[in-house]
């Protein structure tokens, strides 16, 4: 018998199908519905912003990768970071801003700490926060969504519903929830949302922010499109429910209990559903907080992390003076991730409370 050339290696000799690149490209695919919706409602300029973000992220990754020895573009992580940066941009932003954000994300947030897997902060969020606090005005000037263009008063065109409500409450308009505030200011709703509203009893604004008919960043407006992508990732087992579910639920519950306080309406008056669909929460909970590298490794740790994100998001939204609740909360929890991983570890097989007690007694 002829002797074949045999490989000798450690077990196991089988492997599940998933690999780093397939995961990264799947997440990018999951972001496609939200990106496409953004391009549709905010026009082709959004596509340009997304393109600049992605290309600059990949360019910086390519240059830095070649400083070492090989290009790491194939793993898809730079494309994903660029896409997420772009989705976090206002559609009207000058093009040097997404370039700077992507460059900061890849160079400072990712590569200075050692590249893929070694960064402590989510690169895309770090990039966004960097340009937001550097260029706050262009970053928080929004455009009208196509679906509301005709009906929208100019005064409201450049504010997100969340930002608008916050400004109004800070300005002393008390006693109204966000829907009532929007309504009194003449914020329009689409015809579709109005008819769904009549059929279901939900506010038309809630429905519009669920569908994505509001002003905002390119990729964050449609909770529906993001949920489609999120469900795809859950079905593919690329993410688990632990972070998104605990994050969204803790924001919703905290908002319901305490969200009415700043506007003087008392406890248990906050708006449960709108809180989940507004701002960058859906994008953050499904795609940013779930970033593997910067979130805890165990399911127990992920639950703590999700609740922490939710708590800070609620706090910054209702009691903070700046926007950016979601980004800053996730970054804050990124910092706490190593600590969570250190102290919250899975229960070891066979380890019981009685056993640990016995061991403690034995030591004494």
């Amino acid at each position, binding site marked *: 018998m002829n002797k074949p050339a045999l490989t000798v290696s450690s077990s196991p000799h089988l492997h599940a199908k998933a690999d780093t690149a397939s995961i990264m490209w799947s997440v990018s695919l999951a972001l496609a519905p939200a990106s496409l919706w953004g391009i549709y409602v905010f026009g082709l300029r959004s596509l340009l912003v997304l393109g600049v973000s992605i290309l600059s992220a990949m360019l910086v990754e390519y240059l830095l990768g070649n400083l070492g020895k090989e290009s790491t573009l194939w793993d898809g992580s730079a494309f994903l970071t660029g896409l997420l940066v772009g989705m976090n941009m206002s559609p009207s932003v000058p093009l040097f801003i997404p370039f700077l954000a992507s460059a900061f994300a890849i160079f400072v947030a990712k590569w200075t700490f050692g590249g893929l897997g070694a960064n402590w902060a989510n690169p895309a969020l770090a990039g966004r926060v960097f340009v937001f606090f550097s260029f706050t005005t262009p970053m928080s000037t929004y455009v009208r969504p196509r679906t509301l263009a005709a009906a929208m008063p100019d005064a409201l065109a450049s504010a997100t519903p969340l930002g608008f409500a916050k400004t109004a409450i800070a300005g002393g308009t008390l006693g109204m929830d966000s829907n009532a505030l929007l309504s009194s200011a003449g914020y329009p709703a689409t015809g579709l949302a109005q008819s769904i509203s009549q059929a279901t009893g939900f506010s038309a604004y809630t429905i519009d922010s669920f569908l994505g008919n509001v002003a905002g960043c390119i990729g964050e407006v449609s909770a529906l499109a993001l949920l489609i992508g999120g469900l795809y990732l859950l079905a593919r087992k690329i993410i688990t429910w632990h972070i998104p579910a605990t994050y969204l639920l803790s924001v919703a519950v905290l908002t319901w209990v305490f969200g009415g306080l700043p506007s003087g309406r008392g406890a248990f008056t906050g708006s449960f559903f709108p809180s989940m669909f507004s701002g960058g929460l859906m994008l953050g909970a499904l795609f940013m907080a779930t970033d593997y590298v910067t979130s805890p490794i165990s*399911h127990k740790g992920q639950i703590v992390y999700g609740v922490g994100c939710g708590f800070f998001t609620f706090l910054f939204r209702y009691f903070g003076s700046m926007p950016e609740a979601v980004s800053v909360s996730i970054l804050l929890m990124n910092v706490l991730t190593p600590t969570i991983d250190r102290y919250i570890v899975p229960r070891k097989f066979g380890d019981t409370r009685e056993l640990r007690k016995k061991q403690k007694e034995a030591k004494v």
Partner: protein
Amino acid sequence: MQKVPTFSKGGVHPDDKKVFSRSQSIERLPMPGELLVALSQHLGAPAKALKAKGDTVIRGEKIGEAAGFISADVHSPVSGTIKEIRKVTLANSVVCDAYVIIPDEVQPELSGNAEDWRSLSSSDLLARIKDLGIVGMGGATFPAHVKFSIPKDKKVEAFVVNGVECEPYLTADYRIMLEKGEEALEGAMIGAKVIGAERIIVGVELNKPDAIEHLRNLIAQKGYPIEVMGLKMKYPQGDEKQLLKATINREIPSGKLPLDVGAVVANIGTCNAIYEAVVLGKSLYERVISVTGECIANPKNVLAPVGTKVSDLLAFCGGFKSEPEKLVSGGPMMGFSFFDVETPITKGSSGLLALEPQKKVRQTACLNCGRCVAACPIGLMPAKLYRYITHGEYEMAMQTSLMDCKECGCCSFVCPAHLPLVHTMKTGKKLGRKKK
């Protein structure tokens, strides 16, 4: 609907790939021209050689004597002449002495006079199990007489027979259940008597429904007090820790044995060997091995003498259909890959796999995705251990329960970065022990 039992923590679901050999009846291998009978076929100290070059041996005769508490006797699988004693490298990289035996043309038949074991005391039964060289046949090859010697202060509530065969590809235990079910169940009854177990459970995964049904019918016919439990498919259910969790819902703490939770686990193949030893007086010198994998021309379940060279098994199964990337002894999750087709099989060889080339995937840095943590059936954090070991922090790794890792392969299997996690754990254990 009642919930199908399985273990709760971690585990993975590889494709079972048993299709190649599952419908092949057990076939006896024609006598090879030469056998390489190793003296280290069990966990523990190698046996001491009792024969020398030029001696003749008889089939079933003791040729190696247990040397130490954890060790087992070795018996000649054939009648023949010892050509020489030389060093061999086994598939698991153990290097030990082995007899090179040239079999005679004519082999004696087994006397095969069945004896009523029920009249024997449990210490007599245990002596037989020891004298006839029975070891655990699932792969770990732990000497059976050591496992079945129950200290006076311990009580065995459950004897759990392992018919799980959770490793993909392997079908040897499955065929034993179908073709030698009666013998194996009687072996389980003998085992239960030896250890004084109150309850006997056979755990079988649900991908073998015909085996479950067959065993249940046999039990009903014989009126044995044995329960067959169908378990939900999940790897590594065949590990005794996971099997006890699935069947009797008890967890063995770190560093403890099944006996500490009142149970003893034995493989279904071991039960068959116990039957043959006690009832037929046959020592453990042959076993059923699945020769399978994508690259084998005619996959089979072969009854082969211990010491058969892999090349003889391959020839019996038609050789390679296509060029394999790896030859593996045992299952694909925990088995050992080896490079020499002259390697002999041992008492613990449950499978011989010729695996096709795998898709080449580039390794990346750890993403901290947590799949290894979710998959670990012991509740370890493989990614963390990997970091400690690759950074040379063996002490930290040992303190973080590295020694509890049983190298089941779940973490490496799921790792999207394709990190050699199990490989690193093995290395870390060796270096960590050395440092101490």
